[in-house]
């Protein structure tokens, strides 16, 4: 009996130990899976998967970059000379156009003659560039050359200033507008929230009567619990029209609306952390300051705030962390235009909003899908960095206290 009890006890201890490692395991899994899905991106061809680009065999262009492909099909590059070929006008050809040239019956019952017809088109037009599904590409013919396409480059992804993942033939996956959009919205959110939050923290920790504290603290805590989609809805029905009217804008869905909503959402975090830091100031320091003849206000801004500085910094960092990762509220009020942000009064799109808006439409395993997972990786590392920074700052504070 006693032995049995001992064995159960050991077993349960072992279970506790395993659960102790749980959070570490989850973080590890998150890293593994985000990277597994995301990092295939740099092994994918830069044009849409399942498609190829064909030119005439006499064309001496061997390779085109993503930007060149995009410009050719947008008619911004019109001459082969501009991409290193001979002096001739470029003829673009998309797969659909074949159906204007031939009738359905000419392709055979099962479209088995389709590649041959495509080959004829290319053979007859030496300056053509054809964007075709791999399945029907006339690969065996001697007049046709398949252009080798580059893989998606790391520099294009991190340095690219255009995010048009659905563009054909080559999707543009530059994350700069999204990263800058995220930073713009988050930084302004903190700029709005910090003075307010700090003021309220000072009021709550130093000035408020016990009664007002008892009312205000739970209200602020309640606010931290309201779902972000409710804030987003409030922003949509109140803030967006308000901004549109006040600033006479064509649309109210702007970076400003996102910043204000995020500021409101970050307030509870900032207030709670900063207030804790100020309350932890030893009363000996307050008393010393007052006894030297300083007023209460002088004590606050010359003794308590400097003492609580690292706690306040931690509050700021945590507030930024909350703002950077916030998805739904931002998605609902910023308008989501994926362009380089230039002012607060324009529509922007943040990283989380991009993932939320586009993942549903991106086919699993495709380049767009992989790019969204890479965005998730970026977001993960930004917030991890922020969390560790806050941790270090807070640790600093503890060391000083002892």
């Amino acid at each position, binding site marked *: 009996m006693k032995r049995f009890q001992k064995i159960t006890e050991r077993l349960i201890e072992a279970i506790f130990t395993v659960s102790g490692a*749980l959070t570490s395991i989850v973080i590890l899994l998150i890293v593994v899976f985000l990277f597994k899905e995301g990092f295939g991106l740099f092994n994918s061809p830069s044009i849409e998967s399942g498609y190829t680009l064909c030119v005439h065999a006499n064309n001496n262009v061997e390779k085109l970059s993503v930007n060149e492909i995009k410009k050719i099909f947008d008619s911004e590059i019109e001459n082969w000379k501009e991409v290193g070929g001979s002096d001739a006008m470029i003829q673009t050809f998309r797969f659909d156009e074949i159906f204007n040239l031939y009738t359905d019956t000419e392709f055979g019952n099962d479209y088995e003659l389709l590649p041959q017809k495509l080959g004829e088109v290319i053979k007859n037009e030496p300056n053509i560039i054809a964007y075709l599904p791999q399945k029907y590409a006339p690969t065996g013919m001697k007049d046709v050359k398949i252009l080798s396409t580059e893989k998606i480059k790391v520099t294009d992804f991190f340095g690219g200033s255009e995010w048009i993942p659905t563009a054909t033939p080559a999707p543009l996956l530059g994350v700069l507008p999204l990263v800058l959009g995220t930073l713009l919205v988050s930084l302004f959110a903190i700029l709005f929230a910090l003075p307010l939050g700090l003021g309220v923290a000072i009021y709550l920790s130093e000035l408020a009567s016990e009664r007002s504290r008892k009312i205000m603290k739970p209200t602020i805590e309640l606010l931290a619990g309201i779902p972000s989609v409710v804030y987003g809805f409030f922003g949509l029905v109140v803030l967006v029209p308000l901004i549109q009217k006040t600033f006479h804008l064509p649309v109210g869905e702007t970076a400003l609306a996102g910043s204000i909503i995020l500021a409101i959402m970050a307030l509870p975090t900032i207030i709670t952390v900063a207030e804790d830091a100020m309350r932890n100031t030893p009363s000996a320091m307050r008393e010393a300051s007052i006894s030297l003849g300083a007023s209460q206000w002088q004590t606050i801004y010359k003794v308590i705030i400097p003492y609580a500085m690292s706690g306040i910094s931690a509050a700021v960092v945590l507030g930024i962390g909350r703002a950077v990762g916030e998805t739904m509220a931002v998605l609902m009020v910023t308008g989501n235009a994926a362009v380089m942000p230039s002012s607060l009064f324009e529509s922007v799109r943040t990283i989380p909003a991009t993932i939320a808006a586009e993942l549903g439409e991106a086919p699993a395993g495709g380049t767009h899908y992989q790019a969204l997972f890479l965005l998730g990786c970026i977001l993960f590392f930004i917030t991890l960095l922020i969390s560790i920074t806050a941790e270090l700052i807070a640790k600093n504070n503890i060391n000083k206290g002892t």
Partner: protein
Amino acid sequence: MNKRTNQIIAFLFFKMLGFLVVGILIWILAFILYNGISVISWDFLSTAPSEGMTSGGIFPAIVGTLYLVIGSIAFAFPLGVMSAIYSSEYAGKGWIVKFIRIMTNNLASIPSIVFGLFGMALFVNTLEFGDSLIAGSLTLGLLVLPLVIRTTEEALKAIPTSMRTASLALGATKLQTISRIVLPMAFPNILTGLILSIGRVSGETAPILFTVAAYFLPKLPESVFDQVMALPYHLYVVATSGTDIEASRPIAYGTAVVLIAIILVMNILVNILRSYFTKKLKSN
């Protein structure tokens, strides 16, 4: 004199800030309650949406959220409590505890949309659950895990060491001490963690976007591999898309009211439990 006027001005300013912020918060709550309360009726709560989300109720969304709460809590609560027991009762004070705590904090700081991506990659695609109640519940469960761990740890820490040593001195084993002394005493405060998690789970949208949420699904789920509707996602789609946004506004307000009501009730419960817990600790 100068010192005094400075102080009066500064204090007045801070007081105004305090009231301003609380005012904004109350304005948001009041605005939504004011516009939405008239929508709430028994019919609204007990019927399915109809006519392209412009009329009818939100019953399937309420049931879906309820299932998601049950599923995620059933997964996260026992695991979180066990994890907290390990780090506060067994792990000692070395680097292991520090490491675990840092990891828990990091997990808490990961944005919910990243959990959504992860849930989609692991549960929906790799384990092939598809968009399903189980995938959504597990994803939400991971999301609230740090919350459960933290609150449980706080609760365990609040129990005086003398209780443990007294129990051990009477010949109880460590496990007996934990299961008969520490856990029952800490129970009300552990419960606050549970309630906070319920509030959090019922309001999260981003993690369920790609793991479980359905745009419109009039029938209730029959197995854990079915999709469900959920309140926060319902509010999102009703507010931003749909055939007739103006006509579906009342539905959106009503859904927002239900969400806020859930959070309010949970917060009140937490406050009651907390004061009960402090009283109980004092009387011991």
